[in-house]
């Protein structure tokens, strides 16, 4: 009886851990797919699209996750094939400096105006 209990316990533990790992992979897969642009659709992510291109990408991402590739490695793989455009979230590189730095510059510029108008005028 004791052996049976141990066996059942082991069975449950191993199966639940497997389920957990599958769930983690699914969450990661969905996160990646939502960040990949469907190149033949209008403004849709691969996650939202049912096109042939999207279904092939879904298979590839699934395969890469099972091969043990990390999220960034999968993005890099797709960037090598299709360029930066395929990823919704742009990386910081020479083509996107302005995109990333312009809001910061605008913020600093606005802050400087406010500082000058309010703080300095009060003094």
């Amino acid at each position, binding site marked *: 009886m004791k052996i049976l209990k141990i066996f059942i316990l082991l069975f449950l533990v191993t199966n639940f851990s497997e389920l957990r790992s599958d769930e983690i992979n699914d969450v990661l897969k969905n996160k990646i797919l939502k960040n990949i*642009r469907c*190149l*033949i659709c209008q403004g849709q992510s691969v996650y939202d699209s049912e096109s*042939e*291109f999207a*279904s*092939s*990408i879904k*298979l*590839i991402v699934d*395969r890469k996750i099972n091969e043990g590739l990390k999220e960034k490695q999968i993005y890099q793989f797709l960037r*090598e*094939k*299709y*360029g930066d*455009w*395929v990823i919704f979230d742009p990386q910081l590189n020479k083509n996107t400096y*302005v995109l990333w730095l*312009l809001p910061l510059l605008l913020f600093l*510029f606005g802050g400087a105006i406010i500082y000058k108008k309010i703080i300095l005028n009060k003094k």
Partner: protein
Amino acid sequence: MKNKFSLFVVVIFLSFCFVIFYKGLNTPNNYTPKVNEKKNIPTFRAKDFNLDSHINSDEIFEENTFYIVNIWASWCVPCRAEHPLLMQLSKNQSIKLIGLNYRDNYDNAKKFIDDFGNPYSRILIDKDGTLGIEFGAYGVPETFLIDKNKDIIKKFVGPINQEIVNEIKSIIK
């Protein structure tokens, strides 16, 4: 003087923003593939169309030979239009044609080849489209030119035409 300087800074800043956004407006908002980017051929394993076996990419591509990888399908209308040109290219001894049968039914693909002729030295089956992704394709037909160093040197999106055939011939000369 101080006000003039502030105005100058504001004008410069707004001009800068205008130029950036104007440039952004002129950039096409859809995917434009890079057709001249040099890339290594991907490593893959695929099923041969005529044999009931799988083959590795290393066994397909040899050094010192030009290759054309053409993605095609029997259901693809533009593929029919470019097929006579592929037949014309296949007569050239300096180049080998590899076909990638994309998301197709075997019987229909076989009928297509029987009806229109087989320009390919080897046909690979890409049942789920993932092999096309490995090549960086996003539709059908697409054609890749591979040089003697096993690098993809050109990519032609859509059906090839006589102009493209002439361009390929001039490269492989």
